[in-house]
């Protein structure tokens, strides 16, 4: 089942045995084969769990169905070996937040929840300490990337086990780039502006979302500001520093780019709009994950053939990425914390994680460094740029420590709205002032 999705021509859904799909991940409880010891349990002996124990994991539904199918199958396998029932529930990303809020308040719900970004900081009071597990995995797998660690390590302990990062880079049309007379993808934001201008004049604008959407707008706005030396808050985590020089420059440049190179529908876009527009041949360049390429290979092969990926543009202060991390957290209210940790250990272990990673075809970057040289990354050279993004990834709320306040700023779309307002006509200085004031309100609370 863990086939490389990269070259499949049929959507994987059709190959799922219906029984598996329908049963979700409810393993056949009962035949507790205590003889089959899961080899990864550190203690070396499978503890017996009472019959009828249920483990419930909540996560976002995966863009790549093959990844989900494999994960569910692995969960079933774990359940079989441990003699418990494992339920894997998948819902939309935004809905995970709704459910987790209700669960924490009601003190009951899923045992494990996979969170995005720095939610572990936000929900710190509801999560169990998983330091032993996270440290062990980190040691085994070459250490964590900074971003993965930043979002899961709260205060002095690990409140979640990093699972992976959603990568994103610049997706672009090679054929149109060539047509416009450029041999390689622009390196800096200024160069991008020139290239984009030419492309827009040919009827192929650059696409970028500036609406209220969780991933794409933030993946553009935060790195843009960082690349020009701006950042939200000082190292002390309290002093708002957004109104320093770098931010204004980035803001002004983006506003100029709006007319020059952007598809001006971008204000009403959401995360999926740029995917659609790219696959429809309406835009030439956009910042996105690998989802465009995969859907392209599946349904729009002509476009996939001429699609390639390049690193984010560089600014005077460097090249940065905002990546969405995913981490598995064990909920404090859970009555199966030990079992939950064992389950996490199970699916994070190389034996289970590797096939999943391959099935995901580099859509997600593993959280630990040992995977950097994995051959799957170079199998399709077009996908290699996604791997490199983790090196330049920065956490939200830079330069302060990652924390709940950065989450709040993200949830309120302050960065994105700052850019959106400037595009809509507010003078950049004013827009910056508004954003700074909003940040101050958040950070002074």
């Amino acid at each position, binding site marked *: 089942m863990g086939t490389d999705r990269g070259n499949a021509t049929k959507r994987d*859904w*059709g190959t*799922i045995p*219906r029984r598996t*799909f*329908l049963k*979700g991940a409810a393993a056949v409880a009962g035949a507790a084969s205590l003889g089959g010891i899961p080899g990864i349990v550190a203690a070396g002996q499978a503890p017996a769990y009472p019959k009828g124990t249920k483990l*419930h994991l*909540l996560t*976002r*539904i*995966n*863009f790549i169905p093959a990844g989900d199918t494999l994960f569910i199958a692995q969960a079933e396998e774990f359940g079989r070996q441990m003699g418990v029932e494992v*339920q894997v*529930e*998948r*819902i*939309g*990303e935004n*809905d995970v937040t*709704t*459910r987790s*809020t*209700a*669960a924490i*308040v*009601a*003190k*009951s*719900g*899923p045992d494990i929840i996979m969170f995005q970004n720095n939610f572990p900081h936000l929900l710190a009071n509801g999560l169990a300490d998983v330091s032993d597990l996270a440290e062990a995995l980190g040691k085994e797998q070459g250490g964590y990337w900074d971003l993965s660690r930043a979002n899961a390590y709260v205060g002095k302990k690990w409140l979640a086990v990093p699972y992976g990062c959603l990568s994103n880079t610049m997706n672009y049309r090679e054929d149109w780039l060539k047509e416009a007379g450029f041999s390689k993808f622009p390196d800096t934001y200024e160069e991008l502006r020139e290239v984009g201008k030419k492309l827009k004049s040919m009827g192929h604008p650059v696409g970028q979302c500036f609406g209220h959407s969780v*991933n*794409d707008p933030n993946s553009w706005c935060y790195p843009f500001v960082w690349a020009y030396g701006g950042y939200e808050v000082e190292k002390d985590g309290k002093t708002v520093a957004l109104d320093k020089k770098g931010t204004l420059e980035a803001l002004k440049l983006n506003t100029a780019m709006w007319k020059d190179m952007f598809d001006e529908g971008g204000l009403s876009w959401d*995360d*999926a709009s*740029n*995917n*659609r*527009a790219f*696959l*429809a*041949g*309406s835009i030439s360049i956009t910042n*996105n*994950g690998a*989802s465009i390429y995969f*859907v392209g290979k599946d*349904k*729009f092969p002509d476009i996939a053939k001429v699609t390639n990926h390049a690193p984010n543009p560089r600014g005077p202060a460097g090249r940065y990425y905002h990546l969405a991390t995913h981490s598995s957290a064990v909920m404090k209210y859970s009555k199966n914390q030990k079992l939950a940790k064992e389950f996490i250990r199970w699916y994070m272990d190389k034996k289970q994680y590797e096939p999943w990673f391959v099935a995901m075809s580099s859509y997600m970057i593993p959280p630990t460094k040992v995977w950097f040289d994995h051959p799957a990354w170079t199998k399709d050279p077009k996908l290699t740029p996604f791997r490199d993004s983790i090196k330049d990834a920065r956490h939200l709320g830079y330069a302060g420590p990652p924390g709940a306040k950065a989450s709040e700023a993200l949830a309120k779309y302050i960065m994105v709205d700052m850019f959106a307002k400037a595009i809509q006509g507010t003078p950049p200085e004013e827009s910056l002032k508004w954003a700074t004031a909003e940040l101050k309100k958040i950070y002074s609370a």
Partner: protein
Amino acid sequence: MAAVAGAWWKRWVFLYLPLGAFVIVTLFPFYYMAVTSLRPDREMYIPWNRPNFAPFWTLKPTLEHFALLFRETLFARWLLNTLIISVLSTGIALFCGLLAAYALARLRFPLGGTLGTSIFVTYLVPQTLLFIPLGEVIRSFRLSDSLWALILTYPTFLIPFCTWLMMGYFRTIPKELEECAQIDGATRVQAMVRIVFPVAMPGILSAAIFAFTHAWNEFIYALVFLSSATNKTIPVGVVSELVRGDTFFWGPLMAGALLGSVPVAFIYSFFVENYVSAMTGAVKG
């Protein structure tokens, strides 16, 4: 002759054309949904300013989206769940609302006005707030991940309207009806059940339509209180399974939308006459 001719075109300009326009605007999105659900994926993403943009039809209709909906998602199960939840919660709401409406409309007692208003005021509390503390209630009743969680919480926003509607209808029924029955020896309860309720049937039906629709449509409680894959309702299930991150599966999505509404409309068409005449009655009072 001139008068008839005038009337003829008048009918068209002031009646048929505007009505036709309204029907088109109202139903056009459904037509669009239908076309999208039959459109093959390759044709899905054509920008509007391309010459081959064909919004109103597709030359290669396909049933693969419908097939996918039933094969790869648990749509049939969700349909059943939503039906069960809607029917039962409507039933409960009607039961509570009917009795309450009778009491408030027919019986004279102090605090009647206040109670009536306070039942109604609970309607004002937004569900986007209630769902958080309500989760605690659901947990303490051990209803988590059970259809009963919804069957018992939906009436909270269905009862107020049902009560109100049926109150209005009851007021139109003359008191003599009950008084005659009681003179003939019937008890209060018998008079209520055997005489008044049957006469109020249209009102009950109209309240049922309203309640059913709202239960059918509800999203946030269904999202929060249910979790197993087999225990989802249509709105939650369809959106969860077919909106994956930044990719929407438009074909099956629209297929789900159609299948989740057209059958209900079909059933309603048999009751709409009753609904109209019931509202007539409710309104006369």
